[in-house]
């Protein structure tokens, strides 16, 4: 009798597309065999991996058994997801699940009503394990106007950068450690002088900003990514009195100091004369042996290490912390997540699916690492070995980020000092006071557009030392142009909103 009631209720949910649940826990847990078959459509970001269909066929077989659902996955490619993503909602496309993040429209779509609100009731009923495994602070972090719209990211992770260098070359020139930017400079210097067929650090136009954190204008100063207008505005975290004062980084004395240092680096040929148009990532140049250094985040560096230990063991790739002791910040809970479309017809089934993906070992392994024995080999519960076929389904690459959790496995044979660096960051970790702040730009759109243009006109060129002897002049021009374009108005507006936010 109870089962019948549950089924009828579930049917009602499916029909109405609304999800108000009321304690029918069993429905999700054991009544699954009798669930009505449904089709779920999920949007992920990136490009489809070669073996994706093969892996998801397995996923589908299991889903059919467990929750009687069939999953269809569509990828939005990196090139145009920023255009297509909002259009999905604007056009009222019918789908169920979508990847989201602080850099992928979370706040925007949540405020516009694109995502379904996930009530505590719903989560407890249809994603009970997720409810149990997610700390309450993470739920707090993903709230927009007091409502939850995504299952938060529960993996602890840092986005900070490390220097990646060649051990064989360090030994050859008698360098044994890189701790500060000056050590890094020494390394680049000997390369520039002695290894003339190499570009010491093959920086590209998109990578130069990675240098900023290394000189004290560090990550901790960044506003949440989507607000920072490409790194012009920051705030001073060293004032610990609780006030958050916005600063225009370009006007900080450190900025000009840095710029002048880079003129020297540029002149000595640490990077290419056409670095401004260089589209090759420093990682690829390093992997090809064209350059002797790269600046990457720790995860990226780890993957690269595993590649190079096979193909070029003689290089003896080494990694050093590039934060220079500055405070570190773990990625927020909105860094990666999954949301449900407000128009979804089967939100409860979508939640059940996410609960499985996030907490069930088999689903987690399949979606992250592929098929056991083909793409990877598990080692215990915490590690894995990538097999040769992993090229067609690289680990953690088919956009499983939205449901990544502490169940993550570590690659066997990664960086020897991986844990050491991570622990250092963990020790210094602090929480970003503006993590959940959202900037409403509607009053300063024109200034924003004008400033954004100016930043692109000057910033890379100055930061990479292309101003040469005229750097100071170029710098003054830059500051003037920003002032003329109304940077002051943007800052006033943002400061006002920040104050409101903090006083809440």
């Amino acid at each position: 009798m109870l089962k019948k009631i549950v089924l009828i209720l579930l049917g009602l949910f499916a029909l109405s597309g609304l999800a108000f649940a009321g304690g029918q826990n069993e429905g999700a847990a054991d009544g699954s065999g009798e669930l009505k078959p449904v089709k779920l459509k999920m949007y992920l970001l990136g490009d489809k991996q070669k073996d994706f269909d093969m892996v998801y066929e397995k996923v589908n077989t299991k889903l059919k058994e467990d929750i009687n659902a069939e999953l269809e996955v569509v990828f939005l490619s990196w090139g145009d997801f920023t255009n297509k993503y909002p259009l999905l909602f604007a056009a009222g496309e019918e789908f169920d699940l979508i990847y989201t993040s602080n850099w992928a429209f979370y706040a925007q779509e949540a405020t516009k009503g694109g995502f379904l609100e996930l009530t505590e009731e719903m989560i407890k009923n249809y994603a009970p394990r997720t409810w149990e495994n997610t700390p309450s602070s993470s739920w707090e972090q993903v709230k927009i106007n007091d409502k939850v719209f995504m299952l938060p990211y529960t993996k602890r992770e840092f986005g900070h950068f490390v220097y990646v260098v060649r051990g064989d070359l360090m030994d050859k020139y008698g360098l044994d450690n890189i701790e500060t930017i000056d050590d890094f400079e020494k390394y680049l210097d000997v390369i520039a002088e002695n290894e003339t067929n190499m570009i010491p650090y093959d920086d590209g136009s998109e990578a130069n900003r990675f240098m900023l954190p290394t000189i004290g204008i560090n990550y901790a100063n960044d506003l949440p990514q989507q607000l920072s207008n490409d790194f012009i505005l920051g705030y001073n975290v060293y004032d610990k009195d609780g006030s958050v004062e916005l600063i225009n980084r370009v006007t900080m004395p450190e900025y000009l100091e840095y710029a002048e240092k880079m003129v020297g680096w540029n002149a000595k040929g640490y990077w290419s004369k056409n670095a401004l148009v260089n589209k090759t990532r420093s990682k690829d140049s390093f992997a090809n042996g064209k350059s002797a250094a790269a600046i990457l985040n720790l995860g990226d560096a780890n993957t690269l290490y595993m590649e190079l230990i096979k193909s070029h063991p003689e290089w003896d790739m080494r990694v050093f912390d590039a934060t220079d002791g500055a405070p570190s910040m773990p990625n927020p809970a909105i860094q990666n997540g999954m949301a449900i479309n407000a128009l979804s017809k089967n939100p409860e089934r979508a939640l059940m699916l996410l609960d499985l993906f996030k907490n069930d070992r088999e689903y987690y392994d399949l979606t992250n690492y592929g098929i056991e024995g083909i793409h990877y080999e598990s080692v215990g519960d915490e590690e894995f070995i990538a097999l040769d076929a992993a090229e067609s389904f690289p680990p953690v690459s088919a956009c499983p980020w939205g449901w990544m959790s502490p169940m993550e496995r570590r690659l066997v044979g990664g960086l020897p000092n991986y844990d050491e660096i991570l622990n250092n960051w963990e020790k210094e970790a602090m929480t970003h006071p503006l993590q959940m702040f959202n900037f409403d730009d509607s009053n300063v759109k024109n200034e924003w557009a004008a400033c954004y243009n100016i930043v692109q006109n000057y910033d890379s060129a100055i930061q990479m030392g292309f101003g040469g002897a005229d750097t100071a002049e170029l710098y003054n021009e830059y500051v003037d142009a920003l002032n003329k374009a109304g940077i002051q108005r943007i800052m006033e507006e943002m400061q006002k909103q920040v104050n409101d936010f903090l006083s809440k």
Partner: protein
Amino acid sequence: MIKKQSFLKNKTLYWMIAPAVIYFFVFSYLPMAGIIIAFKNYSYVKGIFGSAWSGLQNFRYLFFTGDIYYVTKNTLFYNSVFLSVNTVLQVLVGIILAELASKSFKKVAQSMIFLPYFISWVVVGAFVYNIFNYEFGSLNTFLASIGQKPLDVYGNKEVWKYIITMFKSWKDIGYGSVLYLAAISSIDQEMYESAHMDGANIFQRIRFITLPALKPTMIILVLLGISNIFRGDFQMFYNIVGSNSLLYKSTDVIDTYVFRSLMKLHDFGMAGAAGLYQSALCFLIIVSVNYIVKKSNPDYALF
């Protein structure tokens, strides 16, 4: 009554023009109503017509920094250069191809010149990078092999005007020269024969027969070119200049400028404002140039 008769009489002709009329009505006239987006604070939820009016707000970012004047100037400058250089080269190539005796060589040459037209700017952008790259580019590799010093092309702001014009011509000459070639082949051969009898040499024949006969085609093609003179070739500038911000001041055209300003904002209204600004300028210039042409010789005017 007369109108109806004329319709019946020319029924087939009307049918033939119908697809073009429908095409322009649907894709060029109907969307014109969307111009109002430039004056609106557009939001997806409310749609084009439901969004609130915002007056001239969307145009402000173009004008208040004054940058629009130099990007407009650049757009005008580049397009005028392209138009004049390309017209001269296209006519020249058209005439040379027409005068060539060997038919097979003519065919091969024509195809070779035409080919670049089909290459996407993205690919051309890659060519440019691989030719002028300081460390690995073919230009510097060549210079090194003959014992010369490498050239820092990317650091030199002055040369890019010429490089851009060169690639633009390289890509567009084939297309235009075929149009002129077609015009030349329709010139009456008897004129050339009688000129030959009167003892005119090849240059005199070109000067007094071919060029005057090409004049109407030239004027029409130039007029059509002028109608787009405020529209920068976005693909070309975006792919050749790329992220080389040192060149922005001298190579920014309206399209690339607007693209960069709005890349992060995704504001349809502001993009619409820029589009309207360009269209208004183009409209003004084509109407006035056409008026001047009409004054001097009504036969050559577009409308």
